């Protein structure tokens, strides 16, 4: 099958650094293969910009196979572009039409400040993880055999589905409130569902929610947009579980 090419106009958010004022800039890009991924298309643009001695567009990327959570981009008003269950690196140019205007903006959230162009600082997620996204297991050399504790298959599945979160931040980007509840809900759930995680569950949910609020994420309006845009299909059920865990913890913990 012969490769088809399209010509597109890109409207890309350009911002020199975190302090500078940004703006949408227009770039015409020709002969884009419909087989190329969205990031390859941006590579092509950057090649052209470099040959013209212009500053290339800065954007996050790493594995380019939809598993690392590095890529972001708000494309034509949707997180990770028009497809659901897909990261930007797995989005292909065949989803766009010849002559189309494509708007590319960074994640917009007070908790995700822009570093440059399309790159935002997602370290707020790291700080939330650091206050509770772990279990305290001594590495004494006498580690218990993991499969010795029976775990219901449905619990294991749910924990696994929650753990599929790659921390890309699409939930925050698409939420009208810039809320991180789906991310935190997934992190709380993946531990709360398993016996090893239950030990510290009460304190974990309190700490992670407090950190989430301190980072300046918004509140949950239960619109469900996060669940639909999440490239890993994390369910709203995880937010409800976090809400239950939080209530239970607030009522029963000593402090």
């Amino acid at each position: 099958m012969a490769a088809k090419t399209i010509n597109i106009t890109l409207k890309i958010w350009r911002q020199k650094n975190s302090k500078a004022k940004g703006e949408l800039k227009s770039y015409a890009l020709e002969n884009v293969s419909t087989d190329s991924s969205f990031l390859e298309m941006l590579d092509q643009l950057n090649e052209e910009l470099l040959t013209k001695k212009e500053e290339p567009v800065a954007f996050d990327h790493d594995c380019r196979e939809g598993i690392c959570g590095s890529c972001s981009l708000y494309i034509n008003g949707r997180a990770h572009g028009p497809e659901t269950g897909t990261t930007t690196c797995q989005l292909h140019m065949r989803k766009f039409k010849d002559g189309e205007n494509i708007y590319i903006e960074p994640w917009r959230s007070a908790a995700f400040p822009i570093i440059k162009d399309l790159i935002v600082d997602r370290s707020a997620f790291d700080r939330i993880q650091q206050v509770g996204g772990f279990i305290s297991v001594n590495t004494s050399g006498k580690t218990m055999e993991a499969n010795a504790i029976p775990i219901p298959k449905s619990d294991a599945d749910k924990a696994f589905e929650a753990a599929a979160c790659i921390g890309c931040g699409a939930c925050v980007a698409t939420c009208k409130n810039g809320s991180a509840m789906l991310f935190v809900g997934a992190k709380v759930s993946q531990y709360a569902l398993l016996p090893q995680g239950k030990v510290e569950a009460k304190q974990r949910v309190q700490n992670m929610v407090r950190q989430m609020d301190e980072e300046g994420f918004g509140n949950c309006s239960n619109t469900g947009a996060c669940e639909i845009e999440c490239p890993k299909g994390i369910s709203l059920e995880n937010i409800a579980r976090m809400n239950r865990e939080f209530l239970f913890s607030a009522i029963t913990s000593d402090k």
Partner: protein
Amino acid sequence: MSNSSILKSSIAKKYWMALTGLFLCTFLIGHLLGNLQLIFIDGEEGRRAFNEYAYFMTHNPAIKILSYLTYISILFHAVDGFILTVQNKKARPVNYAVNNPGPTSSTPARYMAVLGTLILVFIATHMANFWWKVKFSQEIPLHTYKIESKQEMNIPKGQSFYYTQVPSIQPIPKDTNTLEEKGTAIYYKNTNIKIADCYIDLHKVVMAFFGKSNPNGIFGVLFYVLSMLVLAFHLWHGFASAFQSLGVNHAKWTPIIKNLGKGFAIIVPLLFALIPILIYLNN
């Protein structure tokens, strides 16, 4: 319990939204059932039933507790909602140049604060229209009625009688020469001798407010019906959303809750809206 977290945390604010919202849903059911008497019971019987009901609702101590709980819930729901909205706006200081939320969320879900504000305006107007008059105004007449068939009692044709709370053996004629009204009570003129307590005629006030005979009636009807449409949209998202906020999300129950919420959002505002429409058509 960390005291600050149960009040201030993002999740706790949502519990309060959910609890007050669900309480107000139960209020809607009670309020609806009471007010449906306006259209489902005809004539003098309906007037008596509604005025007795209105008296019960303003004088029963248990109802008083419920009504204060309702006022508090409305205020809390509004203030909490306002705080949440301000925080949410702060969480996204710069908006997207192009945003396409249509495919990922329902429109009512995204406009809960706007819908809620409109409902608050409606509640204020609705209370000014009726509640304020009952509590503070002397404009509401006492419930009087005419006896048509008792000619043998030497009653002049067209004579009105007070509808008293403890029905007296003899109907008390409305005679301004010998009697006077103080609040809901009637007295012998220029004395402190009370004859009886009467019902205020709220039924008449409502009929006059929405009826065709009132030149502004049609605007009242339109405003109330549109407000019920707004309420329907608010409930469309709000009812099921409250359960999610309280942590109720279950493979078996959530679909039932969602359908129940949508049914509630259609049926309750629709029945409310029927009240002014039918009164307009029949009066």
